[in-house]
């Protein structure tokens, strides 16, 4: 029987050294056993590699940066929807989620479905509010504080022991061993991502990650824990392996159940060497760039998200393969200038 075609708009086509999750999400969608995915890629830059991956992305449109405002984004999405009849949209960047969550009811009324956290869920897990989040949900988190300027940084650091993690509100994190280092990282991150900057007590231990998905009604649909086995100079996981660690799956279940989380999420944790206790250090409100490992382990989270967004009932995954590895690689595509020219001039390809 021919599978139903679903038009799915996906962002995060920047499959670069610090990749967006879009291509991994698309690979999962293309492998769906339940539907035929037609992918409408949404890009911000002309050289996002996914734009040129014609075997994965059927059509591409540029969209405006979130900073331009919701109205501009909405009007661009309306235009794309008129041409492509989008069924489901999957935003994959932290920085754009605010806009997409705001626009979700309007998009839904247009027939564009999504499965996203609510604004409340999105806000509550912000890095600067992690202490509060940990207390509320009874989860261990490292002590953290938010600073907006150098004076606050100096004052707050007096209450921390070094090393201290200095983090941007969306991206980038550095380990500082002294006030001078912390100050330099404060300037480096704030120049790029603005303030606030988050300070977090460093926890000595093994870094672990979990990719998970919730149905928005308090049920965990799937979760796969992973340890990065190869980390690049910029701190990005270039290889990883799925783990058998029920405590991490339970943490994901607990969070999804207690928050009614809807959509994909990634937990970043550190299992403290001295105690074995897992500390939650971050919740990313979308699939991670390594989500295809979950697909490889038998849990197709992107497919589950689309089915739930379309109103289908999806049963939770019961298990996954342990010891599956992902290994990234870089690959040079040869592209025609005319494709670049077309996306650059018309914003469509």
């Amino acid at each position, binding site marked *: 029987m021919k599978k139903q075609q679903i038009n799915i708009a996906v962002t995060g086509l920047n499959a670069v050294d610090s990749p967006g999750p879009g291509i991994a999400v698309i690979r999962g969608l293309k492998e769906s056993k339940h539907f035929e995915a037609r992918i409408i890629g949404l890009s911000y830059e002309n050289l996002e590699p996914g734009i040129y991956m014609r075997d994965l992305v059927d059509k591409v449109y540029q969209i405006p940066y979130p900073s331009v405002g919701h109205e501009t984004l909405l009007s661009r999405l309306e235009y794309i929807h008129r041409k492509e009849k989008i069924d489901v949209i999957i935003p994959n960047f932290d920085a754009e989620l605010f806009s997409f969550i705001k626009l979700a009811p309007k998009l839904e009324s247009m027939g564009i479905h999504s499965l996203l956290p609510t604004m409340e869920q999105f806000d509550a897990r912000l890095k600067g509010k992690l202490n509060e989040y940990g207390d509320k949900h009874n989860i261990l988190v490292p002590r953290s504080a938010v600073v907006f300027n150098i004076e606050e940084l100096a004052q707050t650091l007096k209450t921390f022991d070094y090393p201290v993690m200095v983090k941007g509100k969306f991206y980038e994190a550095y380990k500082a061993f002294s006030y001078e280092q912390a100050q330099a990282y404060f300037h480096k991150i704030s120049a790029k991502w603005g303030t606030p900057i988050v300070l977090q007590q460093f926890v000595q231990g*093994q870094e672990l990650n979990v990719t998970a998905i919730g149905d928005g009604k308090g049920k965990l649909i799937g979760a796969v824990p992973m*340890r990065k086995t190869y980390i690049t100079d910029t701190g990005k996981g270039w290889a*990883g*392996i*799925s783990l*058998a*660690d029920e405590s991490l799956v339970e943490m994901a279940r607990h969070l999804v159940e207690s928050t009614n989380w809807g959509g994909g999420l990634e937990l970043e944790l550190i299992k403290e060497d001295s105690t074995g206790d897992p500390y939650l250090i971050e919740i990313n409100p979308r699939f991670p760039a390594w989500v295809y490992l979950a697909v490889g382990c038998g849990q197709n989270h992107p497919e589950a998200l689309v089915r739930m967004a379309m109103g289908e009932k999806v049963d939770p995954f019961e298990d996954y393969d*342990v010891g599956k590895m992902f290994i990234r690689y870089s690959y040079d595509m040869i592209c025609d200038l005319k494709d670049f020219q077309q996306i650059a001039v018309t914003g469509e390809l």
Partner: protein
Amino acid sequence: MRLKKSIAISENGFVFNAARGDSFSTNPIGLFILEMIKAGKDTKVVQQEVTNKYAIDDSTAERDIHDFVKMLKQYDLLD
């Protein structure tokens, strides 16, 4: 002395800790010792079996097995 439940040992000496994602490789003697530990044998028995199978005196075997077990603990492979 017990191997953690999450440890898988292959016939070729590849050791995988599924809870941490760590992997190791060991030589045939290491594999022989690991399999005995997995079977629940205590250090004395392991030492006896090693001296029976390999041309090694008791005190060297005792010292080497002690070092090996210490390494297993260090790598978080034992309960």
